[in-house]
C-alpha cells in the first residue's frame, strides 16, 4: 500500500526524528533488565519478542497482563520470570508445570481479573495513584485471610476496600500499574516508532502507555506519511516507544487482524502445550523450537522448510472478506474570515 500521492507531494517536516527501528535482539538487550516487570497479553501477542527475551536469558522478571498467553508462561518455564500478576493464566487451565509451581510456591503470583489489570494499567498510564472499581466486591478475593497465600508478594499494596467520599458507595481501590517493559505486536509502524493497530485490543492500549519502555514488533515498516495520513489508527506515538522491530509473523502462531489467523495446525504440530506440561517437555520443546534460532526470521524459515510456504500462506489473510474504505482527514485551503454578500 503506497502512501497517497498528495501527501508524498506535499512532504512534511519530520517529527521527533529519533529512529526507534532496531533488531529484536538489540531491543531486548537494551530495554529489558533483569528484575523488570514485563507486560505481555492475550491480544497483540508478541510471541517473537518473548522468544527473544527467553533467548537473552533475562532473569527475575515479573510477567503482568490481564490474560497471560503461553508466550508469557514460556518466560516462566525458561527461567526468566518468577512472578505473575494476572487475571487469567492460559497455561493454568489444565494441570501441569505452571499449576504445580503455583501450588508449591515456586512461582509467585497475585490474582486479579482481566479488567482489574486493564484499569490498573490505565491508572498507570494516567499517572493517578489508583482507580476505584466494583470488581471483587462480594468475592473471596477480598477476604483478609487470602492476602497471605503461597504466591503472595504484594500484600497490602494489592488493593483496598474503601468508600466513596461523595456518597459512601463501597468500592475497591486498585493501585496504578506501570510495567517497566511492554512487549506488543501490531500491524505497522514508521521507523520513528509511531505504531498503528486495529482489531480488538484487550488491555494492550493502556499497556502501550503505562509501560516505561514499550517494545513493539510490527508486520510492516511504512513511511511516516502513511501513518500521518490516518492518525486515528495510531495507538501510540513514536516518542513514547522505546523500540520498534520489523518482524513479519511476529505474533505467530498467534494471529493478527488483517494479516494472519491463529495457526492452530502449527500449534498442534509445534506442541505449544509442551511448554508448560512439565519441565522435561519444556526442555525438549526449547531444544527444538527456541534455542536453534538466532531470531524470529530463522524460526519462520524453519517452519517453511518443514511444512512449506503454502502451509504458512494458508493462514494468511489475503484480500480478506472485509476491507475498510479510506476516509479523509482533509481540510480546505481557502479559509476566509470575511464573506462578500
Amino acid at each position, binding site marked *: 500500500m503506497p502512501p497517497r500521492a498528495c501527501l508524498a507531494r506535499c512532504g512534511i517536516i519530520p517529527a521527533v526524528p529519533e529512529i526507534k527501528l532496531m533488531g529484536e535482539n538489540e531491543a531486548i538487550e537494551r530495554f529489558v533488565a533483569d528484575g523488570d516487570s514485563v507486560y505481555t497479553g492475550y491480544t497483540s501477542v508478541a510471541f517473537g519478542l518473548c522468544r527473544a527475551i527467553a533467548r537473552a536469558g533475562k532473569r527475575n522478571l515479573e510477567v503482568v497482563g490481564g490474560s497471560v498467553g503461553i508466550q508469557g508462561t514460556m518466560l516462566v518455564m525458561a527461567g526468566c520470570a518468577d512472578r505473575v500478576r494476572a487475571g487469567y493464566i492460559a497455561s493454568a487451565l489444565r494441570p501441569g508445570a505452571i499449576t504445580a509451581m503455583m501450588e508449591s510456591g515456586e512461582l509467585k503470583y497475585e490474582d486479579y481479573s482481566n479488567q482489574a489489570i486493564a484499569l490498573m494499567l490505565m491508572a498507570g498510564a494516567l499517572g493517578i495513584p489508583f482507580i476505584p472499581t466494583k470488581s471483587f466486591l462480594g468475592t*473471596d478475593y477480598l477476604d483478609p485471610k487470602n492476602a497471605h497465600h503461597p504466591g503472595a508478594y504484594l500484600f497490602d499494596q494489592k488493593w483496598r476496600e474503601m468508600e466513596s467520599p461523595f456518597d459512601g458507595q463501597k468500592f475497591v481501590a486498585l493501585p496504578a500499574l506501570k510495567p517497566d517493559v511492554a512487549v506488543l505486536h501490531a500491524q505497522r509502524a514508521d521507523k520513528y516508532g509511531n505504531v498503528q493497530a486495529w482489531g480488538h*485490543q484487550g*488491555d494492550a492500549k493502556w499497556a502501550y502507555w503505562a509501560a516505561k519502555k514499550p517494545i513493539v514488533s510490527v508486520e510492516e515498516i511504512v513511511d511516516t506519511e502513511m501513518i500521518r495520513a490516518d492518525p486515528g489508527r495510531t495507538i501510540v506515538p513514536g516518542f513514547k516507544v522505546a523500540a520498534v522491530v520489523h518482524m513479519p509473523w511476529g505474533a505467530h502462531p498467534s494471529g493478527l487482524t488483517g494479516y494472519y489467523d491463529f495457526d492452530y495446525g502449527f500449534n498442534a504440530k509445534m506442541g505449544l502445550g509442551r511448554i508448560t506440561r512439565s519441565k522435561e517437555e519444556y526442555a525438549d520443546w526449547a531444544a527444538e523450537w527456541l534455542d536453534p534460532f538466532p531470531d524470529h526470521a530463522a524460526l519462520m524459515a524453519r517452519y517453511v522448510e518443514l511444512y512449506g510456504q503454502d502451509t504458512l500462506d494458508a493462514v494468511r489473510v489475503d484480500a480478506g472478506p472485509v476491507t475498510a474504505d479510506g476516509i479523509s482527514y482533509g481540510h480546505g485551503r481557502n479559509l476566509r474570515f470575511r464573506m462578500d454578500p
Partner: protein
Amino acid sequence: MSGDYTLAEMMCVVGAREFPKRGVCLLGMGLPVLSGLLAKLMHAPEIAICTEVGALDYAPRPDVVRASIGIHDLILNDGSAMVTDMVDALGTLLMGGNVDFGVLQAAQVDKFGNLNTLVLGDYRAPERRLGGTGGNTEIACMAKQLITIMPQERRRFVERCDFITSPSYIDGPGARRRAGLEPQGPNRMMSTMGVYRFDTPDGGETGSCEAILEAVFPGLDPEIVQIETGWTLRVADDVRELEPPTTEELALLRRLDPYGFYLVPGRY
C-alpha cells in the same frame, strides 16, 4: 427431534433457547460463546453479542465458518459494529451499566449461583490451581442478569464454592447490596441435566435466593439430578421436561464447532 446428541450439545441448545430475546450480552469464555452464537443465529437475532476483548455487537454472517474460539478470536473483528478494547468492553459497557446479561461458565457453582474459576480447595493451600477469573468476576459483579452454562457434576455443583470469584447471590438475600453490588436477575442456569431459576423476586433482595430446578432434560427424573448436586436440591412444583434438540439446532451447533473445540467428545 434429532436422533443422537450428547448432553453437552443439549445443554448448549437449551442455553440458546433460553437466552433473553433482546438486549446487550457479554459472553464469557467456553460454552457461552457456542451457545450464544447458536442463540444469535437461530433464536435471538436481536441480541447484541459483545466480548470483553473489545468486539461490540458482533453479527456473524449467515455463512460464518465457525464459532469464535476463545474471546480473543480475530473472527470477532469481522462484522462487529464496534471494535475497541477491554476498558470499553468491561468498563464503559459493563461497569457503565449497559450490559443486560452476562453468560458465564466456571469450574464450580453453588446453590446461590456463585461461581469459582480460580482454585479448588483452600486458596492458601490449593488442591488444584485453575486458570483464573479472566473477565468472569466483573461480569458477575455488574451484569444486570447472569446466565450460567456448565456441565452438571457433583464436584462442580457444590454447597458453597471453594472460592467465590464471581458473585451471584453470595450467601442469600440482601447479600449483594451489603457487599456494595446492585441487585441482579432474574438469573438462570443451564446444565447438562436441566434448567434452574433462582428463588428471589427482586434480584436478591428477598426470597431464599437458592437455585430451583424448573426443567429437566428429556426423560430425566429430578432425583437423578439430585445425585449430581452437592446440596439439597429444590425442584419446582411444575417442573417441566425440555424438548430435545431439533435437527436444525444440532446441525447448526455442529457446524459452529467443526473441530470439536468446545464439545470435545467424552469431555462432558
